[in-house]
Structure formats: C-alpha cells, structure tokens
C-alpha cells in the first residue's frame, strides 16, 4: 500500500464509520430522550462506558485475535472498525444531546416544504436545522476514527498511521515529517469546521423542544438496546474479564518490583501536569476565543485544534524533530516536549467536554450559593460549601478526572517524547504489549487501571470527611 492508497483507505474507512455512526447516534439520542428515571441513568452509563476504555485495554485483549485473523484480513479490518465505532459513537450522542436549539425547527422545515419555497431557501433552512448538529457529530466521528493510531498499531490495521510508522524506519528529517503530515491535516480540515462552529454556539440545551418522536418504537428500542449491549460486551466486558484474570496472575509480585511504583508515579505526574495545562488553556480559549464571538477568535481556535487533529503519532514525531533544532534543543531533555504534546493532543476533546458540561450549569443556584457563603451564620456558610460541591464542585471534579484520565492513558506521545528516566506505566505496558508477552502483563495492566480510580475515590472520601467535619 503506498501513501495515497493508505490515505484513501483511512479516509474511506472513516467515512463509512462516520455515516453509520451518525445514524446510530441519532437513534440512540432519540431513544435516550424517551427514557426516564433509573433506566435513563443506566442507559447513559452503559453508553459512555466504552468511550472511556483505553486503547491499552482493547489492544491487550484483541491483539492476538487480530493476529489470528491473518488469513482473513477483512475480518480483522471489520473488527478494528467495529471497536473504533463503538468507542466513538458515544461522543456523537453527546454532541447531539448537548446541542442548543436549532434556529430552524422540524416544524418550520416541514412548513417550508408545504409553502413550496425556492430550493435555495429550503436549503438554507435545512442547514440551520438539526442537520447542523448531525453534521458536527458526523465530522467528529470522522476525525476520531481517521487519526486513531494506538489501536491500529496493536491490531495492525491498515491506514496512514501504520504507513507513517513504517516510513520512519530509515529516519526522516523534520521537513519530510512535516510534509507527510500535511496531507492528513488537509483531509481533516473540512471536518473541523462544523466542530468549531458547534463549539461557538451559545444557548441552552433543547430540553423541551420535541424534534422527533420519543415514543417507544419496538424496532428502534430493540436496536439501541442491542447496540449498547454489544458495545459493552465487546469493548468493556471481554477486555475487562482479561484484566480481572490478570489480577490473579502475578499481582502480588508486582509490588516486589521497585520500578512499578516509579512507573505509576511518573504516569500520575504527567497526567497532573497535562491536566493543569490543558484545562488552563481550554478555559482561556473559551473565555477569549469562543465567548467573545469574533471571527478572529474562531480562526485562532481553529489553528489551536489543528495539532490535535494530526493524530498523536504525527504530532509526536513533529515535536521530536522541532525540539532537536537549534533554538529548542535546550528543552529536549526536559518534560516540555511531552507535556506540550499531550496538551495539544487533548485540547480538542477538552473543549468539547467543557462546552457540554457548561450546559449543566445553573446560574441561579450558583448565585444563591454565593449569597449563602457570605452569610454571617457559620453553619449557613458551611452548608454553602456543601451546596457549592453539589452544584459546581462535582462537575469540576468530573472535568478534572476525565482530562486526567485521558492524559494518564496516553501512550503514543510518551513512546516518542519521554525523556530518559521517565517511564510512565502506560508506556511500559504499551511497549511490552508489542512483544506479545500478554499473559504476564495482565496484573500490571489491572494495577495501572485501578490506580487512578483509587486516587479519585480517595479524593472523594476526603472531601466527604471534610464536609462532615464542617457540618458537625
């Protein structure tokens, strides 16, 4: 496969995944709107779970399966595409769910047809209807699947990322790396535009606008339930069961290896630093570039999203090359290239996350909490702290936890940019996975997976304790 064929293959696969994924996402979002109570919470939880499974886990599970399909390359490609789609569709559903009300409702669109408006007018109405959000979802699905490299490397899926990997065998100068990377960027740019426009849209979530019937439809309900179940089975349960098996194989011996603790603390340090940097930059982008509504701001935001759209492999190679040039060489032996790379890589999804979570804010309750905080009564002030956690703190905690999770499980950038002496646990695992010695890695993978959750649980428990002390 040459470079052109690799690009066409990747783009074609991503288009197919994006089309199918958008249809599924629309169905899922409508189905979820029709649910209520505990059933709705469970369905949302089941939807989001596959998205948060790191490629280390799916790669660990399916690497050997992919290799055993060597006589059936199409089956391997389908398996890879299915896993990528199952992990990306939840993001498309989030985009649709957290979109503001469209300027043109479904009723207006229908009325335009009845009125026999000119086709250009009807086309304008169509572009400002719910279609624009489906377009944003479609584009995000395309970008996510097009730039996916970690799982592709582990499962040996064909595409431009594998081609680029191989091309670097003889070593490439920075100029060549940049020129190779430009084509994938150009391909993605048209798909970034609707996403940037979506980020720039203000307004409340369309809780009450009925765009589609949410009445139960047996066919749709059955399909959505089956899809969720299949996604959980393939992406969560099967890899998870291997993880649990790994806990019984050699878990005890892990703690005898001094390197294990250092690898975990390195991963935590990288995640912490990246989270602080990414959130700072993302909040600044929202404040200065998005909320001020200027087109210059949007263009600058667009430029900031481009490094993240290159894919982590290309981004890492470029940064490695840049930091070997004269003016930047001084920073090569520092964490700067790695942290910068991770910030740029995670920034686009952080902006989407902040945009969605901002729709869950309720300014009125926040104002009341602020008033309560300035009460002369000590008990009221303490209760205000607890209320502040309920209204704002939880959302901020979730934001920090999610961004930290992404940074913690990033493997491609550390494999290229980590300085000597820095060996985060994800990188160690990713390296060893490629050797194929999978049985021995289960315990370490289980520990690496549990570690951030234990930290998050610890923080939550400390907060509860603090809150009880205050209120008592």
């Amino acid at each position, binding site marked *: 496969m*040459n470079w052109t064929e690799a690009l066409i293959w990747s783009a074609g696969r991503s288009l197919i995944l994006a089309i199918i994924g958008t249809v599924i996402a629309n169905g899922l979002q409508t189905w979820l709107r029709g649910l209520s109570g505990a059933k709705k919470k469970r369905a949302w939880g089941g939807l989001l779970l596959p998205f948060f499974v790191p490629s280390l886990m799916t790669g660990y599970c399916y690497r050997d399966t992919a*290799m*055993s399909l*060597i*006589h059936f390359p199409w089956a391997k490609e389908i398996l890879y595409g299915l896993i990528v789609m199952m992990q990306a569709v939840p993001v498309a559903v989030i985009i649709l769910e957290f979109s503001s009300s469209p300027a043109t409702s479904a009723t207006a669109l229908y009325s335009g047809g009845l009125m026999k408006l000119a086709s250009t007018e009807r086309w304008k109405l169509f572009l400002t209807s719910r279609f624009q959000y489906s377009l944003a979802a479609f584009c995000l699905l395309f970008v996510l699947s097009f730039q996916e490299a970690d799982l592709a490397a582990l499962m040996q899926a064909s595409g431009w990322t594998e081609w680029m990997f*191989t091309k670097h065998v003889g070593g490439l100068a920075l100029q060549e790396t940049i020129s190779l990377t*430009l084509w994938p960027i150009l391909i993605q740019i048209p798909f970034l535009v609707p996403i940037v426009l979506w980020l720039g849209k203000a307004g409340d979530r369309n809780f009450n606008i009925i765009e589609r019937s949410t009445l139960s439809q047996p066919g749709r309900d059955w399909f959505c339930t089956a899809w969720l179940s299949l996604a959980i089975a393939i992406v969560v349960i099967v890899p998870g069961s291997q993880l649990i098996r790994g806990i019984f194989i050699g878990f005890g011996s892990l703690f005898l290896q001094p390197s294990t603790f250092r690898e975990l603390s390195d991963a935590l340090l990288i995640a912490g630093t990246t989270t602080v940097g990414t959130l700072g930059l993302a909040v600044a982008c929202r404040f200065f570039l998005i909320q001020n509504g200027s087109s210059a701001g949007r263009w600058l935001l667009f430029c900031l999203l481009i490094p993240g759209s290159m894919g982590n492999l290309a981004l890492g190679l470029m940064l490695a090359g840049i930091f070997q040039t004269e003016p930047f060489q001084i920073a090569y032996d520092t964490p700067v290239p790695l942290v910068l790379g991770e910030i740029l890589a995670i920034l686009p999804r952080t902006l989407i996350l902040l945009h969605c979570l901002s729709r869950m804010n309720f300014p009125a309750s926040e104002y009341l909490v602020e008033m309560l905080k300035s009460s002369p009564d000590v008990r009221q002030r303490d209760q205000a702290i607890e209320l502040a956690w309920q209204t704002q703190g939880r959302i901020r905690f979730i934001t920090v936890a999610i961004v930290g999770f992404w940074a913690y499980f990033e493997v491609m950038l550390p494999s290229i940019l980590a300085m*000597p002496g820095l060996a985060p646990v994800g990188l160690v695992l990713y390296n*060893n996975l490629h050797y194929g010695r999978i049985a*021995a890695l289960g315990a370490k993978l289980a520990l690496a997976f549990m570690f951030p959750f234990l930290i998050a649980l610890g923080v939550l428990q400390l907060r509860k304790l603090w809150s009880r002390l205050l209120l008592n």
Partner: protein
Amino acid sequence: MSNSAKKIALGVSLIAVLIAAWVSVVRRTDDALVVYCAHDLIFAEEILHDFEKETGIKVIIVGDTEATKSLGLVQRLIREKNNPKCDLFWNNQVLGTIDLAEQGLLQPYKGSGYERIPSQFKDPEGLWTGFAGRMRVWIYNNETVTGDEQAIVEQFETGDLSRMAIAMPIYGTTLSHFSILWQDLGEKGMKAWFEDLQQRGCKIVPGNSTVKNLVAEGVCDIGWTDSDDFFVGLDDGADVSMLPIRANGKTICLPNSVAIIRGTKKQEDAARLMDYLLSEKIELALAKSAARQIPLGPFESGDLPDDVKPLAEWAKESVDVTQFSQSRNECLKWLESELLEQNPVAPLGE
C-alpha cells in the same frame, strides 16, 4: 483570607509541587549512566540492576519495542547526535550498531570484555563488540509439520506458503537476515525471491514474537523467528520445535552488540558496564535465562544449559555478520520502497 486569595494560593502551591516533582525527575539522570537498550527488557533489566548493586553505579534504562522499532533507538541516537543523552547502547543485533559506527557516533573502547570475544563478532577498532548471540531459526508446529529439515526447505522453496509467517523485514533481526540474503542473491535475485515469496502467500507480521504466537496457536504452520522467541513459546507450553535457518549452508547467529556513545561524560562508568556485559558471567547468565542466548566468548562447556548446547554448535557455523553493513543499507532502501511502494502523490512541500 478572601476566596480569590485562597484560590491563587492553592494554584501557586499546586504549580510549585508539580515543578518540584519534575525537577526530581529531570535530575534522575544526573549521576546515572543512561543506557539505551534494544534487548528485551524482561531479561536486560535484571542484568543491569545486578550491575547497579555490584558497582553502586546508577543506571537509567531507555527501552525499545518491537512496534516502535521504526522510531527506535538507532534513529533516536542519530537524531540526538549533536546533543547525545545516551552513554551506552545495548543493541539486540549488530547491523544498526555498525550503522552508528559508520556515522561516527561511537567511541572506541577495547577493555577486558572486548578481548575475550572472537574477531568475527566485534569491530576491529573497538567501536562495538558483540555478545550473547541468538540464532535465526525455523519455528514449526509439531501437530502439522514433521521435523524434516529438507521437507521444510523444499516447501519453502517451491510450495504453498500461505501458512508461513515472517516478521516485517525492515527492522531488527529479520532485516539482518534479509541483508545476508541480499548479499548472497544480489539485488535482482533478492527482488525476484521476495516477490515469489509474497505470491505464494507468505504472511508478513509485526515481529518475531508474533510469528512465534501464530505458529504456537496453529494459525500458521511454519515461520522465521529468533531462538529466544522460540524458547518463550516452548516455556509457555506450545507444541513447537525449531531448526536452524541456513544461508548458503551457513547458519545465522546474530549477536547483541554494545557500544559507548561518542560524547558521553561518563566514559569510565560506561566502560565498566561494557566490560560487565561482555564478561563470561553475563554471557552465561543470558544463556541460563529464558532467552537462552549463546555465549560467544570462551566458557566452560559444563556450565552451559542443555537447551543452549546445540545452539552453541550451530553458532560455530555462522556467517560473519560484520560483513553485511553495506548490503543492509541497500536492502533497507529497497525494502522501504518495496513495502511502501512508489508514491504517486508526493508529500506536500517537496
């Protein structure tokens, strides 16, 4: 203190903690010997940690992977040539190290370890030294293939190869293997041979351990791999056997290689580690490890594990791997274009 002041104080404290943590990470290499190691870390780490305990010299290991071999340590060393971070390079084959030597990136050193290694496995100027070899071998599944070497070779030369696997030949020991074939067959012969191989269905997979896994699981019947990968499969209980691969009647024993990087500020410590790795003690330790690597220097034959004895005999018939540097570069250039094909759309900016 006001809320804003509290938030600022918290933010500053957090940043201070992060900076302090990073300073301690950056300083890890201050007094340490930085070793770039392409050998399997499961085996190499134990040896390097023993060196640390015995000498008190702290060692920082930067590993390589099968998947990132294309981004691997040889390329990293070339990239860092004007500002080297590495003090000592432990490669798991020799041709990449020879490439570094030709680019002037290595420092000569002929210590006690160098002296004990035969001349066919070391550079005459002392720029690098080989040790602890492994064989290129046929791995075959006992359930589907008989152990007849002639039958296997016959199948390979003329039969259907849809159930045979080899590792991607653009890096590692498979590249070394192909370089030897390039020299034997010549450019034209090599191209025709490889085309024929693919037409008869031979599968190309990411690495030698993948070849081992496929044969062990019965997905493929035969494959080319390294002897240490074979033993990993055998230890896992796979029903597999091996035979040496021969090129023009000679076996292919590929040593690890070790070299000191030019520009190191820890010449003495690097030399000490180099002598340690090249010692009889370490060669025997690697022979007794799960990798079963073949000692190249003199040793007491009674110390050798039974598994390794036949390998040591095969190694005596090996080609001289130091002769294949030029063919490696030619072969690699051809493989890049062959596997990545001609690019009708040039990268932008060219």
